[in-house]
């Protein structure tokens, strides 16, 4: 049971991260110029 709760919590984090990455439009960050993460390699 404990393992299941942790595993599904990790899944939740992974899904939330990808939604934020690809579908959430950040107002603060304009583009690659001022950050380390371009959303690519």
């Amino acid at each position, binding site marked *: 049971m*404990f*393992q*299941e709760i*942790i*595993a599904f919590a*990790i*899944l939740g*984090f*992974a*899904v939330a*991260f*990808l939604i934020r*990455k*690809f579908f959430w439009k950040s107002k603060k960050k304009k*583009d*690659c*110029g*001022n*950050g*380390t*993460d*371009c*959303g*690519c*390699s």
Partner: protein
Amino acid sequence: MSVQNINVALIGNPNTGKTSVFNQLTGLNQQVGNYPGITVEKKMGFCKLPNNVKANILDLPGTYSLNASSMDESVVIELLLNKNDKLYPDVAVVVTDVENLKRNLLIYTQIKDLEIPTILVINMSDQMERKGISLDIPYLEEKLKTKIALVSSRKGLGINALKELIVSYKTLPNEPCLNASVIDPEYFEKLKHAFPNQLIYKLWLVITQDVNFSNLDRNEIRNTFTKSNSELKRLQQKETIKRYQFINDVLKEGLKVDASMAKDVRAKLDRVLTHKIWGYAIFFAILFLIFQSIFSWSAIPMDFIDSTFASLSSWAAEELPSGILTDLLSQGIIPGIGGVIIFIPQIAFLFLFISILEESGYMSRVVFLMDKIMRRFGLSGKSVVPLISGTACAIPAIMATRNIENWKERLITILVTPFTTCSARLPVYAIIISLVVPSQRVFGILNLQGLTLMFLYVLGFATAILSAYILNKVLKLQSKTYFVVEMPSYKLPLFKNVGINVVEKTKAFVVGAGKIILAISIILWFLASYGPGKEFNEAETIVKERFANTTLDEAQFENEVASQKLENSYIGLMGRAIEPAIEPLGYDWKIGIALISSFAAREVFVGTLATIYSVGDTENETTIKSKMQAEIHPETGEKVFNFATGISLLLFYAFAMQCASTLAITKKETNSWKWPAMQLVFMSGLAYFSALIAYQLLN
């Protein structure tokens, strides 16, 4: 004592070593996201200075003057004219190259006239003796009304003196170099009268550039003080002439060049490196050496990383308490992280070589050399820089097109840049090549795998310029263009700059792409471990019924159950749904899953396969490569990753537009969905049909 925060703007012509000064001041305290070679946008870092002062250092794009002709030059003017900008500089540091002082001083005089405290940095002081150059610093300081820091950013000389000058910026004289009224006394007198509280040179820049400042609207001023565009241009030229007259007068006394003492090898080297035959031969030889080295040198660390993660996976599976979390760790998370870390050596080597070529000054020769070829295909010599920096990532490369003045050339460069082999393709190429191309020597010295990798890079580049040729014919946009490129001196690459660049780019891959790969690996593991209906949930019963008349040992039985479950898992159903479309390309449903998951980011391909094969693995294969090597097609009984499938996959990934971020940046830069949609359709179509033809011919 409280810390005093100040903003310092680094400004200067391209190739004056501005970024090297930035690196010397900030070390690794940087927030960057630029492509190699040129600063596209503002780059921030910080530096602790004496007297408890903390400086926010801003590295601005290289610009020749405050008369902007391209988007990245506008960035400088917009900042300098907007006092309300939180990054507005307390002090400007203008970086110049001792060999090109005359040209570099133009922008210095303009910034001085904005009455911003300005320090003049004369860089590359270590070259002075070799070039026979001597400077009268006190004289120059007096005439240019500033303090001068004579530095060598390569050798770290004069940096402490520069820091001292920055700290005492309040003592710098604020007098302008040129009285702006001399440009057109009558016109400027009227301006002064209408806006008595405004700086006259700022008003002039607002009138002549595409910017607004303070509460003044540019059009309002232009309408009040009507002058035609041609008249304004004429006055701008007059301003430039006046400034050069001033600079000439100053340098006549302040700068001496003794040609007899110069021991310059630059001209000799240029004759060879930009030669119409030898230039290209040397360039291709260098490329060839780079790709050979990437494969040969990174093999040992890659094997080590691969086996370490395989051992870690086995250890987790055996030692941790059994359950879903342990399975997720050993089959999803650890192989997922391994799929990122394994490519660090290759990416680091690639950027090591690119940084060395840039640092040495050779890259500018390549730009010059390629301009002749590029023009025939509707591109500019400046397109070479985005195309080469696209080997890192298409996103900053597309942003780098901002310094191409001509819109048609810029648009074509944006559209074709994603064909360049980016670092996200490298993991895919590396694993497929190692599976289907034998590791043998050609002519005794050439590694066949290295040659294949080089071929793929050349293929990406060739496709980019061929597509540019087609677009040049198709797009009905007319505009004239010219090409100017700076030829910096040859220098021995500076270890610190190369090191920072390699660390930055590798970190960007591991942190940026790594997080996506890991998240997708986790989701894939769940999708591969769960499924709907009884085909998945009653897999054991179904297998028992299927083999009721056959004797299976325990291992064979487990293998059949694992296959049944994977095939009927959520991901298995998705893969099988697209199987009819990808079967003619030589791919099975498992590869289909990797194609789907890598649509958003192509580097996910290897991690996806590592996760899928880990879930379905009953043969106890350990490393990613051995898992892929052992994969057998259930119907044909042949290896899944054979030569035909491998080549088909390589071509698919060479051409396919599998990067959501690139589509987004294309939309942003072109301000239209039309162009990214065209990119997606054209590149995906080309990928599908070339993979199809390759597989059908080779199979």
